Structure formats: C-alpha cells, structure tokens
C-alpha cells in the first residue's frame, strides 16, 4: 500500500523535481518506508512506499525491459502469482518478484484490457513514453483512491487531494455543489470531490490522457443477470459463497509481512476471522474498538468471538474526549466534510494496529452491500409491501421488526412509522424510492446554509445530479427492486464514504493497509446473482452468508440481528477540557468569516446540543457537518502547508533497467 502522484505537461520539459518531492511529503503517511521519483520530458511520477510484497526489489517508479513504460502503483494484485506464471510462459522476463511488475507486462500485451485480468485493490498510473500517453486506473469497487485535476497545461494526479494541492497552479476552494451533495447524500457524488476543480477517477474506470485531452472509460460493471428463481437452491448458494470467500481470504492473506484482522463484534468481521482460523495456516491476530458509552459498545460480542477462535486480541477503549481530540486530524485525512464521527474510532483503531507493528488488516467491509445486510434494504421491502395495500393496519407492524435497537425511536407508534415510511413526499425520482427517506431526512440540515451558500448552489438540484449519475436509472428497469437498491448503495455510499472516509483514509492515516475479502469481484458477482428471495429471505438479512457459516461461528453471532456501527456524535464535543477549538470553530464570528452557514442558527444548534443529551439524528448530523466543514476550510484553505520535507537522500531517482 502506497501513495502515488504525478504531473503530465504535454509538450513541456520535465516537471519540477521539487514539486514532486512536495507531493510526496504530503503523502508520506501512506508510504513511510521508501520514496521514489521518475522524471522525463513532460512527465513526472512519484511514489511513497509501504513495503508489503517483495520487500527487497519492489521499488517504484518501475519500468519494463526497454524503459518505454513506467508505473506507479498503490494497492495489491492478489492473483499476481497466477498471472505471472502465464506471462512467463508467454516469454516475459521478470526482474522482481513484485505484483507491480506483473501489471507492467500485462499492460505491454493488453494495454487497457489488462484490467480485466486483475483481481485486486489498486490505483495506478502508467506512462507510455512511445505513445506519450498517461493511463490512470482504479479498482472495480473503489477501494484505492485516485484524484486528478487540470492546472493550466498540466494534468496533476495523486492518491489524495492534498498532493494535488502542492501544485502552485491549483486553486484551493470548497465546492458549493459538493457541500450540497454531502448535505443530501453524506458524500459528494462521484466524480465530484469536496474541492472545486478536483475530480476522482471513478471506481471501475480508467482515464487515458494525451496531448489532445482525457478519455474516461468504464471497464467493469455489476452483473445484470440475476439467477432465475428455482435454478438452484439455498444450499447451492451457501456452499458457493463459502468456497469463494475461502479463496478470496486465502488470496488476500498474501503478503511478506504478518496480516491481522478487525473484530467488530458483528457478523461480517466474525466471518473473516473464522475463515482465517479454519481455512488458512495464518496466525490469527485481531483488533477491536470498544466504547466507554455502553450505548455504542459491542465488546461482549468481540469477546465471544476472540474466545471462540482463540485469537491473540488487542482492543482500544474510545471515550468522548478521544473523538474530540482526534477530530481535526481525521478531517485532514478524509479531505471532505462528514456528517458523523464514525470515522474517528476507526482512525484510532488503525493506530492501535500500527502500534502493534502490523501493516495489514482484513475487515468485513462490503458484506452489507453485496449480501443485502442494511436496514435500508429491509425498510424498502416493507415500504413496497405497505404501498401495495396502503389501508392495511397489519402491514406496518412489520416496521417494528426493523428498528428495535434505537433507544430514542417513535417507531413504537405504528401510525408514526406509517407516516414516516408510508409514501414520503420526495423530490427524488421514483427509481430512488429505497433511498429517498434517508436523503430527505439528511436534506433537512440544509436549513443551516448561509444565504451565500444557498446562492452559490443556485438551481442545481440533488435529484437531477443523482439521476445524471445513474443515467436516469436506466439499469433499474432491468433489475429487481432489491438488486437495484443494493446497486445504488454499492456505487455511492460504499466507495464515496465507507471505503474512503471510513476506510482507506482512516487506515492509511496510520500507514495501515485494509483488505476486504467480501469485495473480491468474484464474490460480488456471485452474491449479486443470487435470486433476491434467497438473498433476503423474508426480513432475514444476509441469509445466505449465515447459512454458509453454520458450524463455523458461535450460534449467537451467526443468528444476531445486524447492529449498525455508530459512534457518539455532538456529545463528544461538550466534555471537560475537550473541544475548545471546536467551540472556536463554531463561534458566530468564525462561522460568519468562513461564510458557509448561518451564524445565528448555528449558535442555537450548539446551545441545543450542549443542553440536550437526547439530541436527534438531524441535530447531530448538522452539528458534525458544520464543524467538519469549518475544519476542512481551516486546514486546506487557510492553513495549508506541505509539512516537513522528505530529506533528499531518502528519495531514489528511478532510472531505466540496464540492458540485460
């Protein structure tokens, strides 16, 4: 796992080495082990390395035999040994034992077509010196990040936005429409980022840049051919899923350093831990986060699992003060406003991993999306069922089963449940039926916009923006409702929030690499082909996964109803001696100066949150959204600086291989 960056200025001489060094300095948390730079006419590539595979010879930037192709690569190709064997049999000669070199040789043969063969989590850039062409690509699910921007004649790219900001031609400004996306969906809709003029390469896409411009191309998509009902039974899918999960876990344990696993207390991470214990020789080292506040703590279940599997286990107890203290650092890494503090404990957890000298962890991320684990999917199913017969008094009772864990819920009132979920008046087109309640509820916090922000967003509407992203929901017409609502989640919340703000950025902030066996594309494709009635049986989420793990998990874990992962929000910032800077960021003066929000409304919100421990979702989201926007502005617009430079003698300037 690493950080990559580069500059391509068609028709120019080599970009400045000092600029590339600055970009590396900003990415050093992603790869503190080694640094490399390649400079040639019109191109500069930079690489910060966290050494995991081929520790001795895997340095980057790396070139092919004749020096015509150069690569910088962040991530892992899990099937690199198999691919290498095939390439060797076709006459390719390898100089290293790295997965990086496998991509190079594959690209020599197939160019963009190489992506179809890769099983992995990756973002890379290949410079083709003969064609004068830069090729950028990102993995199918969006696990590894890649951003780019235009600065005059230059194309600039990097694993994180902060590296791009090192370029003097890039203006640093928060994008008003992105803020409006976040205050609707929780994240900017891809390819938009929180910053104006900075785009991401979307998941499953490549971007080819030459002197004429840039071409974006999708190379993979979710399957549309769900198996018809009755082709196979439940046990076929349960066994198939387990076989694939065993294989993806086995592949993802490939590393030349020890690999650990997260144990949240939920079903998904328990599955991963159990697969490691039962199907691989890997020693099992596990890590957990606990909460001081029992409302959020799941340590009882973590203990059941670590005892059951006999793991070597460490945990960290997160208090309110910890969240407030780490919050600004977390925003430096998320590079976007967030509406919940949930990323913070994950940042503290990866620190625990690092402190224990581990660099790689496996997690259960992705299972809820591909196997229909979220309440949202159940809720949408119940709402569809209610809408068939709106007058039924019995149908809304199903809603009781959905939200048993919420302490402050009016769901005990059927009438209210019905009013909430019945048929909301929504600006979102019908194909977004499943997500409309979440987006409607989040949109309420726009009440805090300043007049300026409102004007800057102007007539741009979130419903049009999301419809455009999904091309008016054309795929929804070919998919059943459950598969379609999962697809929305897999293409939005998963890459744009969970794998980034709660994933890559929180892990790499402490130089730890996350790996996600559920997001092996073979597992994803298999899961999305399971008939919807088997994928979610009645209202039992992740039905097939539970079946597939019978006998490999303690019963109480395998039968447990999904608990959403949550952390204390606004409450974190009102303790003794914590959050003084937060008070400053939220002061009417500071709010007015930055200009995004209404200072009077914000002051009342802060007062309300301080006084009322039972603050609701809306107030919590508004509080964290405003605070994180203020901090983002402060860190990236006002106080931005590249930090300490990497000493020149630690940077290796890459040269072509000597002819063999």
């Amino acid at each position, binding site marked *: 796992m690493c950080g990559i960056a580069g500059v391509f200025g068609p028709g120019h001489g080599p970009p400045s080495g000092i600029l590339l060094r600055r970009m590396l300095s900003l990415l050093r948390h992603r790869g503190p082990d080694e640094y490399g730079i390649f400079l040639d006419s019109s191109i500069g590539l930079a690489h910060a390395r966290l050494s995991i595979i081929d520790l001795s010879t895997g340095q980057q930037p790396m070139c092919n035999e004749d020096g015509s192709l150069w690569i910088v690569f962040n991530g892992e190709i899990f099937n690199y040994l198999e691919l290498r064997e095939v390439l060797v049999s076709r006459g390719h000669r390898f100089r290293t034992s790295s997965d990086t070199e496998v991509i190079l040789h594959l690209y020599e043969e197939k160019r963009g077509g190489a992506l179809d063969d890769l099983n992995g989590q990756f973002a890379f850039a290949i410079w083709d010196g003969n064609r004068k062409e830069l090729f950028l690509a990102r993995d199918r699910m969006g696990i590894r990040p890649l951003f780019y921007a235009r600065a005059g004649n230059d194309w600039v790219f990097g694993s994180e936005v902060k590296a791009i900001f090192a370029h003097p031609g890039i203006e640093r400004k928060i994008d008003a429409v992105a803020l409006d996306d976040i205050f609707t969906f929780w994240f900017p809709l891809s390819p938009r980022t929180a910053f104006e003029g900075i785009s991401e390469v979307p998941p499953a896409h490549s971007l080819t840049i030459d002197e004429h411009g840039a071409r974006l191309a999708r190379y993979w998509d979710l399957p549309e051919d769900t198996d018809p009902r009755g082709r196979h039974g439940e046990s076929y899918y349960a066994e198939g899923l387990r076989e694939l999960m065993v294989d993806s876990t086995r592949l993802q344990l490939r590393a030349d350093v020890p690999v650990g696993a997260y144990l949240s207390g939920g079903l998904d991470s328990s599955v991963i831990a159990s697969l490691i214990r039962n199907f691989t020789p890997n020693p099992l080292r596990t890590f957990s986060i606990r909460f001081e506040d029992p409302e959020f703590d799941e340590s009882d279940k973590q203990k059941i699992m670590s005892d059951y599997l006999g793991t070597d286990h460490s945990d960290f107890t997160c208090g309110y003060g910890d969240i407030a203290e780490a919050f600004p650092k977390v925003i430096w890494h998320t590079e976007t406003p967030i509406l919940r503090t949930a990323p913070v404990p994950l940042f503290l957890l990866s620190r625990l991993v690092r402190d224990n000298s581990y660099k790689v962890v496996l997690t259960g991320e992705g299972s809820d999306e591909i196997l229909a684990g979220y309440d949202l999917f159940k809720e949408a199913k119940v709402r569809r069922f209610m809408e068939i017969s709106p007058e039924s008094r019995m149908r809304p009772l199903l809603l009781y089963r959905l939200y048993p864990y919420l302490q402050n819920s*009016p769901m*005990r*009132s059927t*009438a209210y449940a019905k*009013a909430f979920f019945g048929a909301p008046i929504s600006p979102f087109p019908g194909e977004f039926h499943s997500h409309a309640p979440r987006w409607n509820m989040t949109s309420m916090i726009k*009440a*805090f916009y300043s007049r300026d922000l409102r004007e800057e967003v102007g007539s741009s509407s979130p419903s049009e923006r999301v419809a455009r992203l999904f091309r008016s929901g054309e795929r929804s017409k070919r998919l059943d409702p459950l598969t379609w609502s999962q697809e929305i989640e897999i293409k939005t919340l998963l890459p744009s929030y969970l794998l980034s703000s709660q994933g890559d950025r929180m892990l790499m902030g402490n130089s730890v690499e996350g790996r996600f066996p559920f997001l092996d594309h073979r597992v994803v494709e298999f899961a999305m082909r399971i008939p919807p009635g088997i994928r979610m049986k009645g209202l039992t989420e992740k039905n097939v996964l539970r079946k597939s793990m019978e006998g490999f998990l303690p019963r109480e874990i395998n039968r447990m109803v999904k608990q959403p992962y949550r952390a204390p929000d606004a409450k974190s910032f009102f303790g003794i001696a914590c959050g003084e800077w937060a008070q400053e960021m939220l002061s009417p003066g500071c709010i007015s100066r930055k200009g995004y929000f209404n200072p009077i409304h*914000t002051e009342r919100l802060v007062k309300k949150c301080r006084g009322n421990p039972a603050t*609701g979702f809306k107030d919590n989201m508004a509080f964290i959204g405003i605070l994180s926007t203020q901090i983002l502005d402060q860190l990236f617009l006002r106080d931005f600086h590249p930090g300490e430079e990497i000493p020149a003698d630690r940077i290796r300037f890459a040269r072509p291989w000597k002819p063999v």
Partner: protein
Amino acid sequence: MDVASQIRNFIVEDFLYGDTTVPLGEDESLLQKGLIDSTGILEVVQFLEGRFGIAVEDEELVPENLDSISAIARYVMRKQGVKI
C-alpha cells in the same frame, strides 16, 4: 400566551433554530415539512410533558395528535381538560 403560540415558539426555537422567516401554517404537517425527524417527536413529547404537566401515553403518539401546531394545541387542551 395561548397554548398554540407556546407550541409555535418551541417549534421555531427547537426545529427552525429561531428562524422566524420560514412560513409555517397552523395546520401544516411537521413531518411533511421536514421539520421533525424520527427522534424529533421525542423532543416534542419532552417539551409538552415539561411545559404543560401532561403525560403522553404511548398510544397517543400518533400524527393526529402531534403532527401540526393546531393538532398539538388541541391535544394539549384536551389532556388538560381531562385532568381538570
């Protein structure tokens, strides 16, 4: 101050953060208007119980009682009437 005005003040303070420029009709649905989320109702109940000294029963937690300023006012007066 009459009951309806006290309720309006609370809604404006608590859910509109003091913004009196947002038009809010007596009969307008607080849910449809997007003012109250699923935990917001709890805040309304807390307020009613604290301010008017009434006890809100579970089965009274229905939109007919709580979903507009006028509905809440009618409900409170009915409850107070019962008590007297």
